[in-house]
């Protein structure tokens, strides 16, 4: 039974695209057949994060407008044979497609893949409506910041209004040192405000910035805590109830110190 999951947040810059890339790659690591669909038409960058920018020939709009066959537009990942990307068009905008067309496309993709992950654009306008049109479930990404949580709350309301009841939460970029000092909202606080089920927590990690820039998702590096956090989320998506990582174990300075003196954890 295949699933279409939209990855959304409302606010921009909280890590939707990074999350999409890592969840897609992680699910492929777990042996699933996955297609990542970039719904951010006009501002595409899922291809960049995956390091597949140079392979794009056709895109989502080409498929919808019938300029090419679906299989010609799908880009196979460098590392994982089960992972494919359907890139967004860069020269058009969100109004170029309709929710109905999106729904049709996702229905077609679901026949061939275990998971269709949709990277949703920021905002609540046409792009958002297109992105959620064919989704069965949603993953909400938020950071422990008031502005991101406000937007996430709005999004959850809109998803409910659109009959997407299964929405689960990823708290991204948590810094346990700041939480301990009382300078950052804790995971419990965020979950209490948004009142939806948590599916994962990803620590703030400069390694993610590096991996994003090099086009190699962090989930490929299982020696890094944030990489493990993403793989755990993937396992939870597949229905495997894995325990949460102890994020207190190694934060910021401590890990940098360890790597300085040559420990490879």
């Amino acid at each position, binding site marked *: 039974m295949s699933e279409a999951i939209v990855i959304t947040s409302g606010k921009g810059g909280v890590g939707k695209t990074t999350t999409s890339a890592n969840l897609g790659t992680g699910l492929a690591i777990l042996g699933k057949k996955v297609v990542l669909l970039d719904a951010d038409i006009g501002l595409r960058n899922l291809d960049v994060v995956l390091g597949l920018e140079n392979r794009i020939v056709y895109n989502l709009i080409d498929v919808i407008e019938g300029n090419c066959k679906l299989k010609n537009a799908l880009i196979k990942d460098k590392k994982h044979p089960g992972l494919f990307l359907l890139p967004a068009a860069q020269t058009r905008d969100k109004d170029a497609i309709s929710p109905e067309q999106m729904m049709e496309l996702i229905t077609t993709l679901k026949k061939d893949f275990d998971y269709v992950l949709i990277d949703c654009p920021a905002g609540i306008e046409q792009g958002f409506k297109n992105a959620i049109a064919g989704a069965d479930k949603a993953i909400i990404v938020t950071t422990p910041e008031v502005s991101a949580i406000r937007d996430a709350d*709005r999004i959850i*309301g*809109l998803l*409910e209004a659109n009959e997407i009841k299964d929405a689960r939460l990823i708290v991204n970029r948590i810094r346990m040192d700041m939480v301990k000092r009382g300078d950052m*909202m804790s995971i419990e606080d965020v979950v*209490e*405000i948004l*009142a939806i089920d948590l599916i994962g927590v990803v620590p703030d990690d400069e390694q993610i910035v590096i991996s994003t820039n090099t086009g190699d998702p962090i989930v490929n590096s299982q020696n890094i805590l944030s990489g493990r956090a993403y793989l755990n989320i993937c396992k939870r998506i597949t229905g495997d109830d894995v325990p949460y990582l102890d994020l207190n174990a190694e934060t910021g300075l401590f890990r940098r110190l360890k790597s300085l003196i040559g420990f490879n954890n």
Partner: protein
Amino acid sequence: MKDAVLIKGNQHGLSVVIEPDTPFQDVKEAVRRKMSAGRQFFGNAQVTLTFEGKSLEQKEKEELLGVIQENSQLEIICLVDEDERRLAEKMLFLKAAQKEADESGAIFYNKTLRSGQELETDRGVVILGDVNNGAKISAGGNVVVLGNLKGFVHAGTRYPDKAFVVALHMQPMQIRIGQVMGRSPDSGGMEKTGYDPKIAFVEDDRIVIEQITNTIYKELGL
């Protein structure tokens, strides 16, 4: 030998409890016997009918229904299956609660109001959930929030006299009762969680928020 069928009454009508191992023909015969024997007893009431003990094919249900109708004067309003009957009972409780609320002029809303959502009513309102930042309630009468109140609330749009707002956790962005307006302090800081029930009311044209104690309603003359 156990009876092939038992006929019991429930809140809304009759339950026919079927012994699972009995062949259908015997069940039919037993129903016929029991119904015709109890013809006087059952009278001509309007009832719902539930089959329990064994799941039946639609055709079998219809046959049994036919047998019951032939052998009694009961008016079967509808067939209800077991789960549905339990649901119906639950609905009845809810309806009773709702009716009570209707009579006291309040409505129930049993979901969290999220950012961008708005609830407007001429009556009072009881929210079973949170009112998040960016959500808006405006009510003709009182507002009771059994959860966190963090959004915008306007109580007493219609009946401003003695209108009040109660919340388990009172931290509204803005609060308005009738024509009187108040806003949250500028001190900022992180959002707090945890329950600390409070009541907001108008005193000398200002909004006052106080801890809920067991005498407060009396003191306020509510």
